[in-house]
């Protein structure tokens, strides 16, 4: 132990002499940990919020009953079950609009809620619970929700439909982003009289399928306690996406750690040899180094976890808003993380540090006490290294091919991407060595030949940093291409989808009729297109059903991926539906196949006559004839309309409608506003992806910087002889710069096809598995140029410091190389 301590002290003195090296190591480890744990924090926060949303009402882990057909079911079923002795509690959920914001309303019945439910615990407070369902009632919202929606306690905001909410009260237990009201109040606010969304079963309720069927026939279905919530399922791909990026950033960060630790190892070789010569056993050396790593992990990992927390806090509003706009999920913006998260961040830092330091530790274990440097042997060593790299690259490619051939879904998509990146990274030094060998072969003049030969020698030292750069660049091209491709497709799709000039939502179906009657008489309005909607569930998946009337707006513009020749006639005259791409992929549907659609009455069998793209929608969508929608779905909302009007008359028509139907129209927007809204949703979706991508690139730049710094120390030994032979310092510095830039450019060139392949994987495998739609594959050469410039810029600045130092180094320093050669 004493020996280990002294050894540790001797080793640690290095950090005092080289604070820059220590800083780099700590920075790398902290950055890797920060990015990884930041992403994990975002995921954990989102999942906690989903759980909180369910648990706040049911107490968590409760079995529920839901409609087996469309979204809502009759309250009578609740009464029937209760009268049969089944212990269930009703819930009605929905959105109301207050000003410009959607607020989730959760209606509960406090007397029947399971005892574990946090809301049910209010039963112990007579004043609260009586107020809840007597008088004007009470709306419970968490303090954070009140803040977010800018509502005060006791306020009674008016919904856009002109209904007054009950007085609001802050309640910490309320689920994020929602206002909990009495079930009766909710039915009133949501205009869903005698309708319920689900029933929560008491913990000891033993209801089984057979009994349920005997009471409710097939109107309700049992949802197991461990069945993922809809939100969990819908958002899974989003979180997997984040995790993949977090991991990528972590790996790139580890390259820095590796480079920094490699430098430390190089510089401490004499110390290590001396210690060995003094009789310190290799095991003691390794033990001391392990202690050192543990301390570093605690320091850097701790800083990293705090950094991750900060990062998560910075990104959380964006993540929360994209989850909200994409999935309607409410994420609490009060970042709260449990101890597990802190520990896992530290564990990840520790694992990363050990991984990055592994080669150094192994070398130490094998270190012969009396070894001298063997510069000549590097060549044989180098060839072995290159052969091993090439073999590993081939192996990674074979595994990637297998993952593509046999794998399925998201995981295999990410595996293909990850393995291909790895293969390319492993191959990078081999390719560069080949290119340099070729250069050496054709070079004329001793300095040029030295330039290439020396470059080859340096590859192994720089290769890890170059690999990191390659991966970051490829990811940048890949993700950038996917996002940009999506942006263009999405824009074109929006143009085709949003043809009508005006979109409005009436407060009630009766109000809608009034507006419709008025609109028919307006000369500026050329068409009134009702877009009524209903909800159903096919194959356990939530599906929106939209009605369509026969009109040029659709026949000439509505984007279709695939369709029968007379798709529009068939849609209106036959039992036919259009299905969204997501739904088609999920259910294995195509044009001509049949689909059974659960309606309010019985299943409706229809033929698929077309498939349409529906980007960004987590739910499935069906489009059917307007009249059939009204016939099959009793609870179809009759309040959504599109209007065709002369574009120049549009602002006037909207203003006119707003004045005439104040209160009867809940929302009205014109085409450009709706497009802007949709685009905003899109941008938010990728805001986090882009942010992580940029951070990864920055980390790889730092990795390159760290590696060059590592090498610059060793370079002096190699450059000094060339200088002694007559090359000037500035000449040498210029050559050094050229070499670094060539390496970076090589990485950028290799990154381009790799990035394209990644884009392809993302659009053809990952997106299809994650979201259910496939984007056309686009190529953006301008992006490649940007990436090349970024690579060269990063390399230039990374090389600048060591080179300026070299150019300015006094001749005596270079001479000293010869006096104390290792």
């Amino acid at each position, binding site marked *: 132990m004493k020996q280990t301590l002294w050894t540790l002290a001797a080793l640690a003195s290095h950090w005092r002499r080289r604070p820059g090296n220590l800083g780099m190591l700590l920075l790398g480890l902290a950055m890797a940990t920060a990015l990884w744990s930041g992403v994990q924090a975002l995921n954990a926060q989102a999942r906690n919020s989903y759980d909180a949303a369910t648990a706040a009402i049911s107490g968590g882990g409760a079995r529920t009953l839901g409609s087996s057909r469309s979204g809502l079911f009759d309250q009578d079923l*609740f009464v029937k079950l209760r009268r049969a002795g089944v212990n269930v509690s009703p819930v009605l959920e929905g959105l109301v609009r207050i000003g410009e914001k959607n607020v989730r309303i959760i209606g509960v019945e406090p*007397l029947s809620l399971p005892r574990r439910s946090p809301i049910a615990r209010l039963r112990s407070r007579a004043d609260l619970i009586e107020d809840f*369902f007597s008088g004007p009632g009470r709306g419970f919202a968490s303090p954070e929700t009140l803040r977010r929606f800018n509502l005060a306690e006791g306020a009674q905001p008016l919904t856009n439909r002109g209904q007054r909410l009950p007085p609001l009260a802050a309640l910490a237990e309320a689920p994020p982003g929602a206002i909990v009201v009495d079930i009766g109040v909710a039915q009133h606010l949501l205009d869903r009289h005698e309708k319920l969304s689900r029933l929560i079963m008491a913990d000891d309720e033993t209801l089984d399928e057979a009994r349920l069927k005997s009471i409710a026939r097939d109107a309700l279905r049992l949802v197991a306690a461990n069945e993922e919530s809809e939100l969990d399922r819908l958002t899974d791909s989003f979180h997997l996406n984040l995790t993949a990026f977090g991991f990528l950033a972590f790996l790139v960060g580890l390259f820095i750690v590796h480079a920094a630790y490699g430098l430390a190892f190089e510089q401490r070789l004499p110390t290590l040899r001396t210690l060995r010569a003094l009789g310190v056993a290799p095991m003691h050396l390794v033990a001391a180094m392990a202690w050192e790593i543990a301390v570093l992990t605690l320091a850097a990992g701790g800083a990293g976890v705090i950094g991750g927390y900060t990062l998560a806090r910075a990104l959380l509003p964006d993540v929360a808003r994209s989850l909200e706009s994409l999935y309607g999920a409410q994420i609490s913006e009060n970042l709260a993380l449990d101890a597990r998260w802190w520990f896992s961040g530290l564990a990840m830092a520790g694992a990363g540090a050990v991984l990055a330091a592994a080669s150094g530790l192994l070398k130490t274990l094998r270190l012969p006490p009396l070894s001298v440097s063997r510069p000549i042997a590097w060549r044989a060593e180098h060839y072995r290294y290159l052969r091993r790299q090439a073999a590993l690259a081939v192996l990674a490619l074979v595994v990637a091919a297998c993952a593509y051939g046999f794998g399925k879904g998201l995981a295999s998509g990410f595996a293909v991407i990850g393995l291909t990146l790895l293969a390319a990274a492993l191959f990078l030094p081999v390719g560069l060595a080949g290119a340099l060998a070729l250069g050496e072969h054709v070079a004329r003049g001793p300095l040029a030949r030295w330039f290439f030969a020396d470059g080859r020698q340096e590859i192994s030292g720089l290769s890890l940093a170059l690999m990191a750069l390659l991966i970051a660049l490829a990811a940048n091209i890949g993700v950038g291409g996917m996002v940009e491709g999506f942006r263009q497709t999405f824009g074109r799709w929006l143009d085709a989808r949003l043809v009508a000039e005006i979109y409005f939502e009436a407060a009630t179906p009766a109000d809608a009729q009034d507006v419709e009657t008025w609109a028919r008489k307006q000369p500026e309005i050329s068409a009134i297109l009702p877009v009524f909607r209903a909800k159903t569930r096919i194959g356990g998946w939530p599906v929106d059903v939209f009605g369509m009337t026969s009109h040029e707006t659709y026949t000439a513009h509505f984007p279709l991926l695939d369709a029968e020749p007379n798709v529009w006639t068939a849609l209106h005259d036959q039992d036919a539906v259009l299905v969204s791409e997501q739904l088609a992929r999920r259910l294995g549907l195509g044009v001509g196949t049949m689909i059974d659609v659960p309606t309010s009455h019985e299943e409706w069998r229809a033929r698929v006559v077309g498939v349409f793209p529906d980007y960004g929608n987590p739910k499935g969508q069906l489009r059917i004839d307007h009249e059939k929608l009204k016939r099959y779905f009793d609870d179809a909302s009759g309040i959504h309309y599109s209007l065709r009007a002369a574009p120049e008359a549009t602002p006037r028509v909207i203003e006119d409608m707003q004045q005439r139907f104040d209160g009867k129209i809940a929302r009205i927007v014109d085409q450009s506003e709706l497009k802007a809204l949709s685009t905003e949703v899109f941008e938010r979706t990728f805001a986090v992806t882009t942010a992580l991508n940029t951070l990864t690139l920055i980390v790889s730049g730092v990795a390159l910087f760290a590696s060059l710094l590592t090498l610059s120390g060793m370079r002096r030994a190699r450059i000094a002889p060339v200088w002694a032979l007559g090359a000037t310092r500035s000449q040498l510095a210029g050559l050094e710069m050229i070499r670094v830039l060539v390496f970076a450019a090589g990485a950028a060139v290799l990154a381009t096809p790799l990035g394209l392949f990644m884009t392809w994987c993302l659009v053809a495998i990952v997106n299809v598995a994650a979201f259910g739609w496939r984007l056309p594959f686009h190529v953006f050469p301008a992006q490649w140029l940007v990436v090349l410039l970024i690579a060269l810029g990063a390399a230039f600045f990374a090389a600048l410091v060591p080179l300026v130092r070299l150019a300015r180094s006094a001749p005596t320093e270079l001479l000293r190389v010869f006096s104390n050669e290792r």
Partner: protein
Amino acid sequence: MKDRRSISRRSALLLALSSSGALAKGFGGLADKAPGFTIPRPGTPLVFPKDHGPHPDFRTEWWYVTANLTGADGASYGVQWTLFRHALEPNATRAGWDDRNVWMCHAAATSASEHLFAQKFARGGIGQAGVEAAPFRAFIDDWVLDTRDDSTGAGIERLRVFAGDRDFAYALDLTATAPIVLQGEGGYSRKSETGQASYYFSQPFFKAEGSISLHGRKMQVSGRAWMDREWSSQPLGPDQKGWDWFALHLDGGAKLMLYRMRSVEAAPYLFGNWIDAGGATSPLTGEDIGLEPLETIRIADRDVPIRWRVQVKSRGLDITTQPLNPRSWMGTDPAYWEGPIRFHGSHMGEGYLEMTGY
């Protein structure tokens, strides 16, 4: 006359909806007048079958049944079934969830070794709980007290009562052998010297027959049952802390109801009613009644008297009561002691004892 009942059921709900900390507020609320609610007036005749149904203009009312039973195995059993309506505000009876009545039901089944109980809460207006006058039907979820299919009249002569939980269930047919008994002055029951009152009638002459099942062991049973009906809006005094109440079936057919209201400050208030085998009633005053606890046990961290000496001097009654199961503790919201008892001494018989506020 029946104020102990008012307190029992009303405070039961308030306690159910409140913690002990909120109790003061609950009682405080009851000490207020009941603005908007109807107040019982003397001389108002009870009308049947209408008065079997709910009285939404009153704040509170209950339908209450206890039965002393003997099983086919010769052992004694008891059951309790009480449905309670409490209006949170005047004119509480409305359509759907707008209804402001809260319904609560307590059920228990007792043997010498077991006391099993359960409770239910429900809101009015949606059909989950409620009472209809004719044909008579009181229900909350699957628990019912309603008219039997073989009944011909519009009264409560032939009823069926059912309650069940995980561990117990009972289903009894109740058949009246004498007409209902109007308490107090033709159903107007004075509750204190300060003029508080309720409407009140009873049916203490039920023959009970059916089955009881404890932990899945089902047993045929028969015996006697007692039903109480009372409605009121009356406030209570703020210093009342609990009561002891007896409903006794005397061998020979007479019935006896007695209670003792315990006050924080004043001496206990005693009252009673002697119902002869034909249904004729004679009120008993405090001086005539003697109620004396003989033995207490520790139950649910409280000292509860379980053996009593009961006297009605004018009737020469001097008996000692003994619980069938001393641990007949209702761990409901609120908690109280209620269970079947037997008695001996000058008279023999059986009945029910309820004790609250311990």
